[in-house]
C-alpha cells in the first residue's frame, strides 16, 4: 500500500469524524442547552444569550433548585404543591398501556391487511387511513363528547382507550409485513398452522425491527400528548407530563426554570428507551467487517 494512499485514508477518516462532530453539534447543542438551562438560576437562562460565549450554554452558578421545586422538595415547590413524579408516573403508565395493547391490536390488524384474504380489503384500508386525515384540533371536542358520554372523562381510560389502535402503526406494519417472503407463511399454513400461529411464529419474528420501531414511536407519541389530556383530564392527579410542563406558564409569567427541568425529565425516558433499543437498528457484523 503506497504512502499517498495511506495519507488519503487518514484524510478520509478525519473528514468522516468531522462530519460526525458537526452532526452531533447541530443536534445535541439545543438539547444540552435545555439540560444545562435546567441546572441554572432562572434569571440566568436568558441573560447570556448575546454575545455568544461559553456561558450562553454552561451555567455560571449551578443549582438543583429547579428540580427540587418540581419534585416538591423545596419550600417553594412544596407551597405550590408541585408533584412531577406523579405526572411522570401517569405518563409512563398511560404510554406503556397504550404501547402494549397497541402492539397486539395493530399487529393483528396489519397482518389482516398484509396477508389475509377478504373482500374489498382495500376499501377497508382506506377507511383506516382516512382516520389520520382530519386535523385533531377539530375532532378533539367531538371525541371528548364521546368519551364523556361513555363516562370515561377524568380517568386513565380516557387517555388509553382512544389510542389503543393506531392507523399509523397499522399502515406501517403492513409495509414491514409485506417485505417478508410470502412463501414462509404459505409453507406454515400447509403444515397446518392457523392464522394466529403464522402471525406468532412467522410474521412477528421476521418483523422485529419494524415492530420495535413502531412501539418506540407510539410510546413517544403518547408520551408527548398535550392537547388531549389537557381537555380530557381535569383531575390534576391524573394529568400527564407535557400538560404539567405547560402549566408552568401562568397568565402573567413563565416559570422558565421549572419548564426546563420538567422538559429535561420528560425527554430523558424516551432517549433511554431509544438507547436500549439501539441494537435493533444496526446491521449485523458482516457489513461492518468490510470497513478498514
Amino acid at each position, binding site marked *: 500500500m503506497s504512502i499517498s494512499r495511506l495519507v488519503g485514508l487518514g484524510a478520509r477518516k478525519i473528514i468522516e*469524524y468531522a462530519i460526525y462532530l458537526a452532526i*452531533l453539534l447541530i*443536534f*445535541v447543542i*439545543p*438539547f444540552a*442547552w*435545555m439540560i444545562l438551562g435546567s441546572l441554572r438560576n432562572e434569571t440566568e437562562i436568558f441573560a447570556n*444569550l448575546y454575545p455568544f460565549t461559553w456561558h*450562553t450554554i454552561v451555567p455560571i452558578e449551578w443549582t438543583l433548585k429547579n428540580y427540587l421545586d418540581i419534585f416538591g422538595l423545596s419550600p417553594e415547590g412544596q407551597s405550590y404543591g408541585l408533584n412531577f413524579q406523579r405526572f411522570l408516573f401517569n405518563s409512563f403508565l398511560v404510554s406503556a398501556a397504550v404501547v402494549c395493547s397497541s402492539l397486539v391490536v395493530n399487529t*393483528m390488524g396489519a397482518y*389482516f391487511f398484509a396477508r*389475509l384474504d*377478504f373482500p374489498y380489503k382495500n376499501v377497508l384500508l*382506506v377507511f383506516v387511513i382516512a*382516520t389520520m*386525515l*382530519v*386535523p385533531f*384540533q*377539530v*375532532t*378533539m*371536542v*367531538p*371525541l371528548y363528547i*364521546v*368519551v364523556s358520554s361513555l363516562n370515561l372523562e377524568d380517568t386513565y381510560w380516557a387517555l388509553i382507550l*382512544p389510542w389503543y*389502535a393506531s392507523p399509523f402503526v397499522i399502515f406501517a406494519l403492513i409495509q414491514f409485513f*409485506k*417485505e417478508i417472503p410470502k412463501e414462509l407463511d404459505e409453507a406454515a399454513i400447509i403444515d397446518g398452522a392457523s*392464522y394466529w400461529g403464522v*402471525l406468532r411464529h412467522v410474521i412477528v419474528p421476521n418483523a422485529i425491527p419494524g415492530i420495535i420501531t413502531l412501539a*418506540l*414511536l407510539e410510546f413517544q407519541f403518547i*408520551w*408527548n400528548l*398535550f392537547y388531549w389530556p389537557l381537555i380530557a383530564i381535569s383531575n390534576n392527579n391524573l394529568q400527564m407530563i*407535557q400538560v404539567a*410542563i*405547560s402549566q408552568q*406558564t401562568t397568565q402573567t409569567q413563565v416559570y422558565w426554570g421549572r*419548564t426546563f427541568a*420538567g*422538559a429535561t425529565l*420528560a*425527554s430523558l425516558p*424516551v*432517549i433511554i428507551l*431509544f*438507547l436500549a433499543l439501539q*441494537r435493533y*437498528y*444496526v*446491521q449485523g*457484523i*458482516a*457489513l461492518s467487517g468490510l*470497513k478498514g
Partner: protein
Amino acid sequence: MSDMVVATRPAREGLWQRIWRRRTRNYVIAFLFVLPALINFTIFRYLPILTTLRASLWQYSLLGGYGDFIGLQHYRFMLEDPIFWKSLRVTAAFVLLKVPLQVAFSLVLAVFLRQERWILGVVRSAIFTPVVTSMIVVSVLWSMMYHSQLGLINSLFSIVGIPRQAFLSNANRALPAVTVMMIWKEVGFSLILLLAGLKGIPEVYSEAAIVDGANRLQIFWHVTLPLLRRVLMFVVVTQTIFSSQVFVPVYAMTRGGPLNATKVIVYYIYQYGFLFQDMGYASAMSIATLVILLVVSGIQMRAFRSEVEY
C-alpha cells in the same frame, strides 16, 4: 383467485352451510383479526369525524351549540375566503419544502448510520434527541437562535460580514425558518423508520452486487432503494399527512404571522373553531382538508406502486 373452481357449490344449499363453507369461515376469522382496531376507529375516530361532517352543514359554535341548518353555505364561503386559500398555499409550501428534504436527509443518514459502530450509535441517538424534546423548549430555543438581534445564526453571519437578518419577523423568511426547524426536529423520526426498513433487507443482495463489481452508489440506487420502496412510500405518505397538519410550532412561535406568512391551515381552523366561535366553518375547512389529503395520499401511493411493481 386460484381456488375459484373449488368455490362452485351445489344448487341447493342451506344458508347455514353457505356461511360455514371454508372460505367464508376464513373470512370471518380474518375479520376477527382486524375487528378490535375497527371498533376503536369507529367509536373514537369516525364518530368525531361524522360529528365534524354534520357540524360543517350547520351554524355551530362550541359555546352556543347548534343553530340553523345551512347546507353548503360554509363551503361556499370557503371558496371566497382569501385567508383560507392563503393558508392552503402556506401549508402546501411547507409540505413541499419539508417532506422531500426531510426524506432525502433521513435516507442518506440511514444508509451511513446503519452499521454497528459506537460512534454511529452516538450520532444516531443525537439525531433522535430533538424528536423527544419538548416543543415548548424547542420553540423558545429556535426563536432565540433565529433572533434578529441576539441570535446565534446572526452572530455567525456577522463574523463573515453578512448584515443581521430577521427570520421569524420577516414575512418571506418565517416559513422557511419554521420548516428548517421542523426538519431538524423530525428527521430522526423518519430516520428510525428507514433504519428499520434497511434492517429488513437481506445482506445477500448487496453482497452479490459487490461481487458483480457495483460501486456504493450503484448498490444504493439499484439494490437498496427498490427494496426499501414500501417503507419509503410509507414515510413519504405519512410525513405528508403529518406535515399538512402542522400546528404546534405555529401555535408556539409565530401565531400565524407575520402577515399570515405562517398561517397553516390547521392553525386557521383552530382560530375559527376555538377563538372566532365558528366551529361549523372550522369543520367545513377540516372536511376540505380531509378530501385534499385523501387525493394527495392516493396519488402518492399509486405513484410508488406503479414505479416498482414488476
